[in-house]
């Protein structure tokens, strides 16, 4: 498709902005003005609308295709939450209003949403309190590690290391590193669990924290999780819970009960808010009693008279991590989702997510290698190692699935599984959808034996064939130029 800029026509203009009543005033001095016009396109409204409508049709999305992208929890995003978030009463509120003198009464509705969402998340995770401010999962991780750093600093301790298992999300070590820590990596044992002996060796009085995902990125619940947390605490370290996979745990187990000190939640995964082509998400961070006093400001508090207010008094706070109160629009949608599902609905979501994942695992395990053959939680991780012997790699399988109308599973992660195929169906998919997907996957396994070239040729029916990624990286073309 042509680019917006390639559709530009000199002299064409959109009448959108025209305003007849702009006052006549002394113009701004030329010294402060742009010397050169931008090369932005001039298009009619219909041209713009048609351009983007046609672009949208080139995407796979949850609403159009099965999207079992492991680790991302691509569940159905209820439509009513979109409508609620677009209500003027929420969308048109300036974030500085409650900070104005006399402005406390102006945003009681939004403050109540934040307060109540925090309360619900605290109960769901078993944590003491939450900050709703982090704007994505990784942002929550960074906030969590900053809280941990503040805790140790407050105790005069100069701990240097953060421990992560080699199966962790890349954001974990990245977040620890940019917060100023050195990262220590623990390998995964043959049983699929973090190597406990190696962990004990590496844990020391210089360890600031241990960051864990539970269930882990192999989709497995580690039964030693409490022991790992207890050992960390004994060494004076804190334990961090990466909540990317919380969907499987709703009502079953809570990070707070397992001994975690900090947890981040991806509202766009577990609580059904849309992923928006990469974001916005939201990554609220919950803490146990040890860390409450370090939470970012402001905090939303409920006064005795039932009204809500912003509190900036925390003396030991890590400060500002967001300009205001977080991605309010996303938090609002998640709050609506939690109210809609309620206790039974959330538990049912976890149960059906685990049922769907285990069903796919059971149906495909005879045709694809399952490096860690265990009962799984919300996702299962296969390997295409068997198919790779015939030259059909996980990447080829992914491309073939695209041709068949499926968004592929995650294949670039976890790094510890060669030729990984990480499938997370989520609870909102029907058995029929799973059966069709399973049939296609079995078909690919057959083809990999009989006619590998046909898999490697895919995709043939998409707007583009396989793209030259090496060229993209070697000769970066990152913006249009005339």
């Amino acid at each position, binding site marked *: 498709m042509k*680019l917006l800029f390639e559709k*530009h026509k000199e002299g064409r203009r959109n009448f959108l902005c*025209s305003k007849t009543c702009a006052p006549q*005033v002394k113009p*701004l001095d030329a010294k402060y003005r742009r010397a050169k016009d931008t090369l*932005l396109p001039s298009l009619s409204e219909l041209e*713009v*609308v048609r*351009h*983007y409508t*046609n672009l*949208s*049709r080139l*995407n796979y*999305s*949850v609403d159009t295709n099965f999207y079992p992208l492991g680790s991302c929890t*691509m569940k159905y995003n*209820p439509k009513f939450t979109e*409508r609620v*978030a677009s*209500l003027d*009463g929420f*969308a*048109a*509120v*300036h*974030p500085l209003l409650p900070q104005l003198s*006399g*402005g406390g009464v102006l945003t009681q509705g939004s403050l109540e949403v934040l307060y109540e969402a925090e309360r619900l998340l605290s109960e769901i995770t078993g944590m003491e309190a939450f900050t709703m401010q982090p704007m994505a999962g*990784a942002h929550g991780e960074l906030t969590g590690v900053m809280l941990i750093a503040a805790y140790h*600093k407050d105790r005069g301790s100069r701990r240097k290391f953060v421990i992560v298992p080699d199966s962790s999300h*890349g954001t974990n*070590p990245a977040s*620890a590193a940019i*917060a100023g820590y050195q*990262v220590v990596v623990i390998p995964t044992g043959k049983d699929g669990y973090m190597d406990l002996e190696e962990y004990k060796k590496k844990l020391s009085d210089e360890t600031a924290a241990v960051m864990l995902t539970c269930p882990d990125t192999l989709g497995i619940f580690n*039964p030693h999780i409490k022991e790992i947390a207890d050992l960390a605490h004994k060494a004076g370290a804190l334990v961090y819970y990466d909540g990317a996979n919380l969907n499987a745990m709703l009502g079953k187990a809570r990070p707070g009960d397992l001994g975690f000190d900090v947890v981040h939640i991806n509202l766009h995964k577990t609580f059904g808010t849309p*992923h928006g082509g990469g974001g*916005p998400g939201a990554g609220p961070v919950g803490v146990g009693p040890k860390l409450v006093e370090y939470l*970012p400001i402001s905090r939303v508090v409920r006064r005795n008279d039932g009204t809500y207010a912003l509190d900036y008094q925390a003396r030991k706070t*890590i400060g*500002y991590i967001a*300009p205001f*109160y977080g991605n*309010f*629009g996303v938090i609002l949608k998640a709050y609506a989702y939690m*109210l809609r599902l309620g*206790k039974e609905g*959330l538990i*049912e979501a976890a149960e059906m997510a685990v049922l769907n994942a285990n069903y796919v695992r059971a149906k495909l395990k005879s045709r694809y290698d399952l490096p860690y053959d265990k*009962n799984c939680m919300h996702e299962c991780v296969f390997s295409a190692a068997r198919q790779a012997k015939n030259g059909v790699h996980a990447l080829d399988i992914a491309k073939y699935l695209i041709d068949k109308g499926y968004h592929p599973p995650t294949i670039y992660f976890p790094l510890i599984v060669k030729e990984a195929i990480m499938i997370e169906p989520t609870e*909102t998919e029907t058995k029929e959808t799973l059966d069709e997907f399973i049939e296609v996957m079995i078909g690919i396994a057959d083809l990999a034996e009989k006619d590998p070239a046909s898999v490697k040729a895919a995709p043939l029916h*998409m*707007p583009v*064939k*396989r*793209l030259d990624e090496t*060229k993209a*990286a070697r000769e970066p073309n*990152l913006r249009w130029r005339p």
Partner: protein
Amino acid sequence: MSYVPHTKEDKTEMLKAIGASSIEDLFKDIPKALRAKSFDLSQGMSEFEVTEHLKRLAAKNAISLVNFVGAGFYDHFIPAAVDAITSRSEFYTAYTPYQPECSQGWLQAIYEYQTIICELTGLDVSNASLYDGGTALYEAAMMAIRATGRNKIIVDSGVNLIYRTMLYSYTSNLSIEFVEIPVIHGQSSRDELIRNLDDKTAAVILQNPNFFGAVDDHSDIVGRVHKFGALAIASVYPVSLGILKSPGEMGFDIATGEGQSLGIPLSFGGPYLGFISARKELVRQMPGRIVGATVDMDGKRGFVLTLQTREQHIRREKATSNICSNEALCALRAAVFVALLGRDGLKELAENNYRNAEFAKDVLSKVPGVEVKRSSPTFNEFTLRLPRSADEVVRKMIDKGFASGFPLGKFYNGMDNYLLVAVTEKRTKEEIKKFADSLEAVL
């Protein structure tokens, strides 16, 4: 009550295929001792009930006030087509375009967004978005530190205090030296700034228009910054770039800012849009997703995520940033907004903001006791000196139906009587006149 589609038969068949005796059996790996000690939530509600509940809460927010509050976050008009396009679920229910063949729509949209940001800021490269203007500024500072191998950052105090505070919070465990330069008569203190430049300086951060709304040409400062081998970072307001000299034209190396003004609702502080752009030599230091153009096996143009060896999913602790999810849908809103306005429309929007604010300055300067600060030209926001506490005036103006501005005493010592007033294209002459009358009445 939830969105699961399983019938009783489905569950029975699926459990049988798995070889499990019950749903509970699937959770057997979680030892009894580790089970949830509590899960005390209410019962689910119908869609109607939740909607009504939230409508009631929305009605508790006051949105009828005529808004003159800006302070970095502005009340601009959003064309209906922005909502229509970004409400297409082919966009909003997709995720990061890891698989290019089924994501060309998103990838092209981001490539176009990157181009728009580069055009607005006058720089070479951009990315798929960051969380907000504050985190974008922090990422820019970290880029400069890595690129120069130095650790001192000079920050003009005309930079939004919210962003400065975020910058200091994020870096509190790193050994970075920050020097703040005071603002004199609403402008950067050039002497003070230049005096602090040395061979340890990684970057100088300036904002245009600055927090007081003052417009400047920083070209001279940027020239001095480069003589010391440091980088110059600009924090900018994208709507103003319709008419203002771009960071690129002034020689800046990196530009960042809050993209909320480009078609994104105020929404009580988020989701917003952090944007960043830089000279092409700095591209390997950029954080986050970047989309590049390439060709497919038939030589046809297509788009992919590229230069991924900077990123956390590959480089882990050595990545340029930990960012994974970004604000792509907000970036799409911004791109659609700019595309709808077009080259001339964006200029006109900026011009209308400037004119409205100038008109408001004239009207307000006639209110007895009110002094409009005129030491610098401004864009759509300016400072008033009032004869009494701005806090008190703001409180009284709420009763008159106005969110009248941001009291500068909150952020700056000794400025208790100063009010920062923003006038966007949405404010009418009548509203501005009524604002002046009400101000006169409360003073």
